[in-house]
């Protein structure tokens, strides 16, 4: 095979000789511009193809564009010495590009895009409300008829969302305990009140950090998994398949996930509390020389049982938020792989947002109730 030659041309008097390979990879739009020439108007230009080594449709297109621009300047072109193949390609491209009319894309205005977003938000809100309704109705079906509860799916869900998350939840909570103890202990030490770190650790971890950290980890770990799994099933028409079999995808796929997470998240939160307090205890011993026995005896005397209860009560609510948002976003996937990614992101962002809002709501509620 001969060396590839870049496409080019030579102008000799009124004849343009094409040279080299006029094939896609070597082409550039700047290759053949009428502006590079100064032709007198209403003259005839001869395009000679005899030295051209190769031509493909994209090369033919560029030459055709050139001819058409020249035509507007009243310069006619004569194509000479084409071989059969080149003749054929030029005809094909001429024929097809005459048909291929440009389809104008819809212009985007910022005002209309605001309107579109607003309509989309309203639609999504309505859909979410109707999704909640569907979940509630299906839950009622389960309550009335417990034999329909999908225990296998629920236990499988507890395993994957709870049991398998124990390591990461325990590790991160332990580290949070270490950090909290260090930050608070250093402040207290200046007043010689290091032992009060036990009170602060106990209350903050049991009431706030344990449930909140767990919920945020689980939203990132499990909420996204729900959205991606259901989204992919939706794309693959598995959801449609279930629904056409007269089965409810909500009952089969979504309720077990919500139920499993509602069981798993409180359990994980307890683990998180234990690991967090343990982390604080280790740090208290290392930094402030508070013996384990002292830590535990003070913990027992100052931390009321209600702290654990107040912390744990929030977690089923968090679990329902994470699971419903994840499943709902999964169901909103449509058409493209891109939308799976987008919906998964939205599910995590919304879940974490709602967890924090709910937590704030609980704080206000507890303070109004004087707890």
């Amino acid at each position, binding site marked *: *095979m001969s060396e590839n030659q870049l496409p080019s041309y030579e102008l000799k008097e009124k004849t343009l000789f094409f040279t080299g390979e006029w*094939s*896609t*990879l070597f*082409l*550039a*739009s*700047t290759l053949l511009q009428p502006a590079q020439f100064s032709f007198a108007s209403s003259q005839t230009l001869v395009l000679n193809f005899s030295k051209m080594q190769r031509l*493909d*449709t*994209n090369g033919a*297109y*560029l030459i055709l*564009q050139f001819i058409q621009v020249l035509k507007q300047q009243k310069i006619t072109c004569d194509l000479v010495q084409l*071989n*059969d*193949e080149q003749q*054929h*390609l030029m005809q*094909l*491209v001429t024929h*097809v*590009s005459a*048909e*291929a*009319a*440009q*389809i104008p*894309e819809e212009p985007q205005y910022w005002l209309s895009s605001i309107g579109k977003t607003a309509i989309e938000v309203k639609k999504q809100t309505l859909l979410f409300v109707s999704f909640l309704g569907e979940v509630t109705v299906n839950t009622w079906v389960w309550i009335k008829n417990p034999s329909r509860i999908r225990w296998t799916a629920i236990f499988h869900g507890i395993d994957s969302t709870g049991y398998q998350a124990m390591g990461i939840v325990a590790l991160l909570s332990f580290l949070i305990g270490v950090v909290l103890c260090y930050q608070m202990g250093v402040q207290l030490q200046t007043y010689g009140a290091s032992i009060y770190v036990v009170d602060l650790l106990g209350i903050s971890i049991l009431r706030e950090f344990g449930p909140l950290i767990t919920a945020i980890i689980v939203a990132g770990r499990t909420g996204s998994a729900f959205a991606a799994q259901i989204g992919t099933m939706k794309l693959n028409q598995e959801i449609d398949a279930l629904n056409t079999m007269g089965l409810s995808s909500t009952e089969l796929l979504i309720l077990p996930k919500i139920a499993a997470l509602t069981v798993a998240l409180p359990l994980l939160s307890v683990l998180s509390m234990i690991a967090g307090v343990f982390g604080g205890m280790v740090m208290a011993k290392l930094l402030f020389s508070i013996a384990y026995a002292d830590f535990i005896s003070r913990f027992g005397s100052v931390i009321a049982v209600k702290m654990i209860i107040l912390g744990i009560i929030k977690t089923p609510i968090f679990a329902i938020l994470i699971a419903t948002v994840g499943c709902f976003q999964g169901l909103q996937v*449509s*058409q*493209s*792989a*891109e*939308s799976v990614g987008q919906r998964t992101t939205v599910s995590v962002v919304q879940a974490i947002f709602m967890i924090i809002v709910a937590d704030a709501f609980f704080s206000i509620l507890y303070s109004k109730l004087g707890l």
Partner: protein
Amino acid sequence: MAARKMDEPKESIIDIKGLSTRFGSQIIHENLSLQVQRGEILAIVGGSGSGKTTLLREMVMLQSVFAGSIRIFGEEIVGMGLADKKRLQQRWGVMFQSGALFSGLTVLQNVCFPLCEFTHLSEADIDAIGLLKIKLANLPATSAHLFPAELSGGMIKRAAVARSIAMDPELLFVDEPTAGLDPESASDFDELVLQLRASLGLTVIIITHDMDTLWRVPDRVAFLGQKRVLAVQPIRELVKNPEPLIQAYFSTPRARAAVPVGDKS
């Protein structure tokens, strides 16, 4: 066009020799050989599991080869370096069975994608060339701004063809083009392949189970069986091949039904 091809000396565009493929202990191909001439349409047939798609994946370098040699455009592709591989891959187009269109891009963006990546053409030229390819693939220009999910099965296949010819390849690999199409779309697709070969001088490798396509489109048919190519013949001769596997394949009622009236014995 056809006459011009006849004058030229026959040149092998693909030359496979002694190819072996194994998945673990499972042997797919053993000492397989196949030649494809420039400008021809070759169909590859064979029962399920005979390694048709594996062979295609090896030719387009998606699958590594256990032993043997595959030469495409005269270059050995087994053990080829990354730079050479990229250069060579721009010279062929592949149409996957399900279309494999990028779901986040419109039809036009799909077609223009390789052009944007590999050429120095301006955006306006790329769009115009993309539309041209869409028209060449017999898609209406109005479908240019639709997303793959909004297309029918037949349109997806045609959009996939439009994308695979975007770079004006010399060689086109097509996997099961008519699977899942209604008879009319399938027959349109057969016509499209013939038309593209005639107008662009393509060499086409088709994997198919479609008997009507086999009778209408390819110049020669390669039959895969017993881990190798049992025969490469025009379909009229292939159906008379006494090899038992080939006879079993072509003696089913469905295969018989596809035989054109003039060829029925």
